[in-house]
């Protein structure tokens, strides 16, 4: 039996720039637990915009969004932050680690915010994920001393720390060379297969998209295939 992790219904969004410009048209789809989905489409078709809405960071849209069977619209900024903290792991194109902290601390941070576990337990869990992703020996390095590929894997570990319902990525390999991209893709595949992690990744890499179980293709703010 499968459960729905994410459900989008008739999501519309327009920018005022300076005239009203519709970017997303009636986006509707669902993602089941354990699914590994990629989103592809031409540059400017609205992939990032959609992902910011799905991740609850952007609240300026019409339509319905349910995460873990909970309706997101009409929730307060504070509640949404809590949902992001608990249920969504986000991996950006640019690595976005906190340079003033160590790798370990970066990974621990969302869990410290959630404070479901004690600090010692959080540290153990963080080390476990760093180990799973093969970067355990980097744990005590400062975040800005890492290579791009290493940083992105740390970001993935951070996204995983609270056992999120879904991990979203906006071109997480967009800024990496071929070899590092491979490593990151491999990491996602491993998460999907080994840990049955639900993943939703925006990408430009068609080979990678083809290797995921499901691909959503967008064009001019509409879903043309899923």
């Amino acid at each position: 039996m499968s459960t729905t992790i994410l459900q989008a219904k008739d999501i519309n969004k327009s920018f005022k720039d300076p005239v009203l410009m519709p970017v997303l048209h009636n986006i509707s789809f669902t993602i089941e637990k354990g699914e590994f989905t990629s989103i592809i489409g031409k540059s400017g078709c609205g992939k990032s915009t959609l992902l910011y809405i799905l991740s609850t960071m952007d609240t300026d849209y019409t339509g319905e969004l349910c995460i873990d069977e909970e309706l997101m619209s009409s929730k307060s900024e504070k509640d949404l932050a809590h949902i992001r903290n608990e249920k969504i792991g986000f991996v950006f194109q640019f690595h976005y680690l906190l340079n003033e902290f160590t790798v370990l601390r970066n990974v621990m941070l969302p869990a410290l915010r959630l404070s479901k576990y004690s600090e010692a337990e959080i540290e153990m869990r963080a080390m476990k994920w760093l180990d799973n992703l093969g970067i355990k020996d980097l744990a005590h390095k400062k975040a800005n001393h890492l290579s791009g590929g290493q940083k992105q894997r740390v970001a993935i570990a951070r996204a995983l720390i609270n056992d999120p319902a879904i991990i979203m990525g906006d071109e997480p390999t967009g800024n990496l060379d071929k070899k590092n991209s491979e490593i990151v893709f491999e990491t996602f595949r491993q998460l999907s297969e080994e840990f049955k992690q639900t993943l939703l990744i925006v990408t430009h890499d068609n080979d990678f998209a083809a290797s995921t179980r499901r691909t959503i293709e967008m064009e001019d703010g509409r879903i043309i295939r899923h």
Partner: protein
Amino acid sequence: MDFLKNDKRVLGVSRKVSTQVFFNSGSIDITGFMNGIDIESEVKFYKFNEYVTTGKPMDLKYVPNSIILGKPLAQKLLADIGDVIQITTPQGERFPLKVVGYYQSGLADFDKTQSFVNTSTVQTILGKPNSYITDIQVKLYDIKQAPAIAKEYAKVFDTNTEDIQTANAQFETGNNIRNIISYAVGITLLIVAGFGIYNILNMMIFEKMDTIAILKATGFAGVDVKRIFLFISISIGITGCFAGLLFGYILSSIIERLPFETAALPTIKTFPVDFNPLYYIIAIIFSLITTFFAGWFPARKASRVDPVIIIRGK
């Protein structure tokens, strides 16, 4: 007398008999005043002993026909401790008195003419009964009530009264102006420091936009971000506050040891410094309030950063 002593607002009462006298020094006479005082209550309520720079004040009571002279007056009379000087009353009677101490209030003009003896000595010299009194000094628990009580006593006893505020009006205005100036300087400095912290935090938020965006994307709410920046500003405030207090304390300790001699204040040899803890508490409270407000506005700005704009802007 008893009426005054029983008044609950009154701390102490001392009687005084004053008269004009001539101090005889060889062939010349020096005009001056002789104050007959109740030495015990003067010492108790008015710290008379602090003004007696040489000799023992209590000798006025124990040595019969003794006198304490203003120091400049004694110098003019060439009178040492233990010497006997001659005085003449307005009625023309002469009296020998033994010098037992020097008095120095710091007001040279005052010291040049004043002398102190026991109340009974003046009464004897003047040939008056021991109920004869010219002044009564009343010390209150609450100095602020003085003008009101002075008026009240004037009515009750049908006599002249003067409150300390009127008597020292000039001193009070000077004091007030000094206070206003020092508080104005203090507040100006705090405002300047406050803007300093405000600017530091504003710059910091500008630099840390990415950090704020990540925090928000990973589940920190606006209030959490605000709390972090308020915490930073309060930390700056507390550190600065205690560093400032310590530095200020050290500085005032040094100043307190610097020699400061003036004829006007004979009992003071070094700079007078008031180490009242109240001043330190006021400093702590005001500096923390300043840093709180200096931190509040940047922190609020940080809490409103939209992560989407920052992430997209990369």
